[in-house]
């Protein structure tokens, strides 16, 4: 442990010195008596000083947690020498908050072992390293301080809190593997499609007995097969709008996590493209492992300022499989992502844009000119949305506090009408 003198040591040495000097100069023993207590404390404090032997261990009860929930940090403090005053601080990164007093003050006896529970609230999603502990022991009479840092870091992943979704966006085309998406074609499935006369090779269990009795010849049910699909979540990390604790990136990550969890649950293959200053992608795959891969990648999502022009040409081809449903989560603030999305549509991808609205994060200025600029900015955003709609891309505005399901329903409605129009 690193030893250092406290201000009290210097002050007491000064007081004792001044008192004894004054006693000598003035020839009064009483002044030496006044200085004596400070000299006595100095003597006792330094004579009884011993380097403390404090050992600290930390463990977390969980490596993964959801935003808003708690993780318990268990601290074990041991010492071979008695410690009258131990201050223990667990340094917490931004995004984690202690629900118990931190730092804590302890007194330990000879060979004592103390266990402490420190509940930590996961206030914000992210990947954290928790466990840098700072211990400070005050020596006898508070003259010397012994400090030491303990590196007991443990990884803690805090995932964004998800949202319940009743219905997901259905892709225009599906894959040949079985899944939960009902296709428009006919085949082996559960969802009823139509009736047709019996043909050789049809299974008996497919015969619709009611229709058969009515028509006098065997008729069978036709069904829509359930297939899975490829879903690529396109996360725009070029720019964000931030106000206080919240930002458009936070909302986008929350929505991406929710969508990934629901699509994986529906046996679809899910991929991720974080398109921004730093490019990050995950090729499509299915299963719980892939869900954790996606969620872990989302934890790394950050806004990196970059002026380099980027378009979807730089994306590896396999990150955007043909016929994949691409769900873009973007605040539509950066020209590069705006162009990239239009480019995706031009290449025939089934694209839906959930605009993470930056409007609630922007306060118009007090001046008339600022108000005018704000209104012009809103109009430009409307024009941008209209340009997407013109090329057949559904774009919906999603604001903080609104259910994601509402935004998805809006996309579904647009796609239904768009298909009718094309027909």
């Amino acid at each position: 442990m690193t030893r250092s003198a406290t201000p009290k040591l210097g002050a007491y040495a000064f007081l004792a010195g001044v008192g004894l000097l004054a006693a000598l100069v003035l020839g009064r023993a009483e002044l030496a008596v006044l200085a004596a207590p400070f000299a006595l404390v100095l003597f006792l404090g330094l004579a009884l000083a011993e380097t403390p032997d404090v050992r600290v261990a930390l463990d977390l009860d969980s490596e993964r947690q959801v935003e808003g929930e708690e993780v318990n940090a268990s601290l074990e403090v041991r010492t071979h020498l008695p410690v009258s005053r131990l201050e223990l601080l667990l340094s917490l990164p931004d995004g984690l908050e202690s629900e118990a007093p931190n730092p804590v003050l302890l007194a330990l006896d000879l060979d004592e072992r103390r266990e402490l529970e420190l509940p930590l609230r996961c206030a914000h999603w992210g990947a954290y390293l928790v466990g840098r502990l700072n211990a400070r022991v005050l020596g006898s009479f508070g003259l010397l301080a012994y400090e030491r840092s303990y590196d007991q870091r443990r990884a803690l992943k805090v995932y964004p809190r998800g949202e319940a979704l009743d219905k997901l966006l259905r892709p225009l085309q599906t894959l040949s593997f079985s899944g939960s998406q009902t296709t428009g074609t006919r085949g082996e499935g559960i969802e009823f499609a139509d009736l047709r006369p019996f043909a050789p090779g049809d299974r008996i269990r497919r015969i619709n007995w009611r229709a058969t009795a009515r028509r006098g010849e065997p008729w069978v049910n036709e069904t829509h097969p359930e297939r899975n699909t490829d879903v690529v979540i396109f996360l725009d990390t070029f720019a964000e709008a931030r106000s206080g604790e919240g930002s458009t990136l936070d909302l986008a990550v929350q929505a991406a996590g929710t969508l990934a969890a629901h699509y994986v649950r529906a046996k679809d293959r899910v991929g991720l493209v974080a398109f921004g200053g730093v490019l990050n992608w995950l090729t499509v795959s299915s299963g719980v492992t892939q869900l954790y891969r996606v969620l872990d990648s989302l934890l790394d999502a950050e806004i990196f300022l970059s002026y380099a022009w980027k378009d979807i040409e730089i994306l590896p081809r396999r990150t955007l499989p043909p016929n994949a449903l691409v769900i873009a989560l973007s605040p539509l603030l950066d020209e590069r992502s705006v162009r990239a999305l239009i480019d995706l549509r031009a290449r025939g991808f089934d694209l839906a844009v959930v605009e993470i609205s930056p409007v609630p994060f922007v306060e118009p200025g007090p001046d008339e000119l600022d108000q005018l600029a704000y209104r012009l900015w809103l109009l430009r955003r409307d024009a941008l949305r209209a340009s997407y709609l013109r090329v057949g891309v559904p774009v919906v505005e999603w604001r903080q506090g609104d259910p994601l399901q509402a935004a998805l329903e809006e996309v579904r409605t647009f796609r239904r009408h768009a298909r009718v129009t094309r027909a």
Partner: protein
Amino acid sequence: MTATALRASPGVDRASLIAVGAAVPLALLAGLALRWSGALTAAIVLMGAQQAVRLALGNDVLDEWAPLTAGALLLCAELAFWSIEPRIPAWSQPHLALRRLTTVLLLCLLSAGVGAAMLVAAGSSLSGGVPLELAGILAATGAVAVLAYVARRSP
């Protein structure tokens, strides 16, 4: 302390003593508010200075209250330095605060006892001489040696 000093030394400039007396709580307040140990030290020095003035201008009789004054000065200093320590919820463990308070009070009593012993020694009718001078030199050398030892022994 200011009142005692004023009463005991009528010949001194009263305004100076009152000014010094008024500076003590100001320095204490500043030290506590700013958490600055320098101001606390200055306040203790000023309190001691008042006593020094009183003793210097008073008669040659030993002040029998000096050990108690010394204990009170130490109590003031201990409590003041305790107050400017980093704020930690100490009262979540009241026994710690109680234990520390007891230690401080015992230390003050011990200081008063040591002071009284010193006062008795100073008031004794021992006349000077080679043995006494030798004892003084040995005591001073021993004190320096002990201080050097305790300063060096910690890592």
